[in-house]
């Protein structure tokens, strides 16, 4: 049985409106389903309301495309139409919204782009801060150590837990929406100290001086740890933002790493003993040359050297990376048969516009998207893709049917965009 606090009982009884009642009903069922006993307050939520099925499917379920009815059914799992007044917790939107300027380049075209806009407007109407990013920590939603959050989207969850030391499980569309409305989330999993200790040690044998190696390490370890938390030891350097984003994104693509420690780097791992809580490990791994190559080969599965599309910016590109790509493209022109798509958050796009990065990318023939995601692009499945993101390699085939993908560092991807050929290899 779940024990509820007086304010939770009030919400459940419907004394604070139908929206809070439906949200609390859903949270109670979800808490029971997890086997948890109570809820905890949260004032930091990210919702992934853009991740809805294709507009053709939505129309079959909600023929009018009325946004309150879509929200009631898909976000709140309510059979009746509920008009949400205002969210209680500080809430921001995750990515998976369409860049309104390019309806024809994203799946579902104009109709899907318009629906995405309606959902964005709906979010703003009920008090959600529309950031539209998979990297909220780049756009002003930065939880503090120990803060209870209810976040969605895979790589951000690992970043929230491991790098910031805040606490979140991998929430879904409906649970995060219910948390936004009520300011509550189940006290379970990553919210509890005993579930945050490392279980598998990973000895880093390489110098790890480039972003690609962090993608490869995350991808390799993700394949081998199951639901256990890895503890990286022997890190010879302090990884920067881009390296940590890569590690988070890769580990939760090949596997389910929602939390990890890097001894001497991450906030809950000042020492190995503290990171593991002095508990027994279930396994030990190494990450050296052999393991790096295993991951690289797993990620490179193209059969042709001609490249048609280059996608960068998964997770949403940082300012540092936008600056370097802009530098690589300065005065260059991409190959006429190649499309270059780069995705970032709207806050970084704003800065990139002001500093001329966007103009340089555009002049070279590329497009800098805001809000959107590589898996939302409308691509022909017979095309060959090159990307610097292990996460994109993992998700693009399932979302688009495209099978031929090259993975390599940004420089090799930009070279492919300019020449139309893949010449990358593991160096």
């Amino acid at each position, binding site marked *: 049985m779940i024990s509820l606090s007086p304010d939770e009982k009030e919400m459940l009884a419907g004394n604070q409106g139908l929206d809070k009642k439906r949200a609390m009903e859903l949270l109670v069922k979800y808490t029971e389903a997890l086997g948890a006993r109570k809820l905890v307050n949260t004032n930091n939520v990210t919702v992934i309301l853009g991740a809805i099925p294709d507009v053709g499917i939505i129309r079959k379920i909600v023929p009018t495309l009325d946004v309150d009815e879509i929200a009631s059914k898909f976000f709140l799992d309510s059979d009746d139409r509920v008009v949400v007044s205002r969210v209680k917790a500080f809430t921001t939107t995750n990515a998976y919204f369409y860049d309104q300027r390019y309806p024809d380049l994203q799946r579902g075209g104009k109709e899907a782009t318009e629906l995405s806009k309606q959902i964005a407007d709906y979010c703003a109407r009920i008090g959600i801060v529309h950031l539209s990013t998979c990297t909220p920590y780049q756009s002003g939603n930065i939880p503090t150590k120990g803060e209870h959050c209810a976040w*969605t989207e895979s790589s951000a969850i690992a970043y929230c837990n491991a790098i910031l030391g805040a606490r979140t499980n991998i*929430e879904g569309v409906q649970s995060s929406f219910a948390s936004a409305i009520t300011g509550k989330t189940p006290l379970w999993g990553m919210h509890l100290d005993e579930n945050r200790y490392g279980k598998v040690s990973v000895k880093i044998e390489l110098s790890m001086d480039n972003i690609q190696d962090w993608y490869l390490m995350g991808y390799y370890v993700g394949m081998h740890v199951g639901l256990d938390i890895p503890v990286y030891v022997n890190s010879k350097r302090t990884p920067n933002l881009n390296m940590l984003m890569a590690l988070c994104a890769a580990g939760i693509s090949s596997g389910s790493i929602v939390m990890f420690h890097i001894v001497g780097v991450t906030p809950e791992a000042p020492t190995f003993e503290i990171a593991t809580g002095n508990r027994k490990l279930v396994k030990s791994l190494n990450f050296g040359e052999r393991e790096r190559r295993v991951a690289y080969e797993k990620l490179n599965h193209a059969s042709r050297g001609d490249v048609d599309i280059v996608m960068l910016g998964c997770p949403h590109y940082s300012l540092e990376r936008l600056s370097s790509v802009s530098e690589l493209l300065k005065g260059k022109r991409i190959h006429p048969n190649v499309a270059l798509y780069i995705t970032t958050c709207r806050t970084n796009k704003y800065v990139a516009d002001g500093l001329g990065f966007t103009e340089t990318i555009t002049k070279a023939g590329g497009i800098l998207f805001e809000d959107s995601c590589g898996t939302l692009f409308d691509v022909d499945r017979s095309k060959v893709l090159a990307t610097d993101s292990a996460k994109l390699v993992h998700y693009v085939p399932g979302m688009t049917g495209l099978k031929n993908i090259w993975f390599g560092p940004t420089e090799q991807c930009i070279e492919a965009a300019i020449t139309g050929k893949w010449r990358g290899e593991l160096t």
Partner: protein
Amino acid sequence: MKTIILKGRKIYGGMAEGEALVMKGGLGGMGVFDVESGTVIELGHPWINEIVGGKILVFKTGKGSSSWSMWHQTLRFMGKGPLAHIVAECNPQTALGAVVARVPSVTDLDKDPTEVISTGDWVKVDADSGLVEVRKK
């Protein structure tokens, strides 16, 4: 005919019986189904071309994107959902997924259901009591 009883706990209540569809690994959400027909379309998926509607799904855990629950909920909206879930290890995706898919679901069973149950076995799920009865084919 051999009958096996497994005992665990409820994720989401209800009763169902039908033919099992079993996989050893984690089940995804996004990109796994054609939700209009309930057919598994993910490349390399052990259930590729199988229809999940009317089946009892047996799997290790949930994996992949935060939209897991939405895809399983959409199968219900389209009338193409499975009869029940039997989950070896419950996680947020499988917990929320069962709630919004509104299918009876059990977990924490005394034996690994992905080892004991084979595709094609006849299975009864009484989720409120946490009981699974397996008739081997």
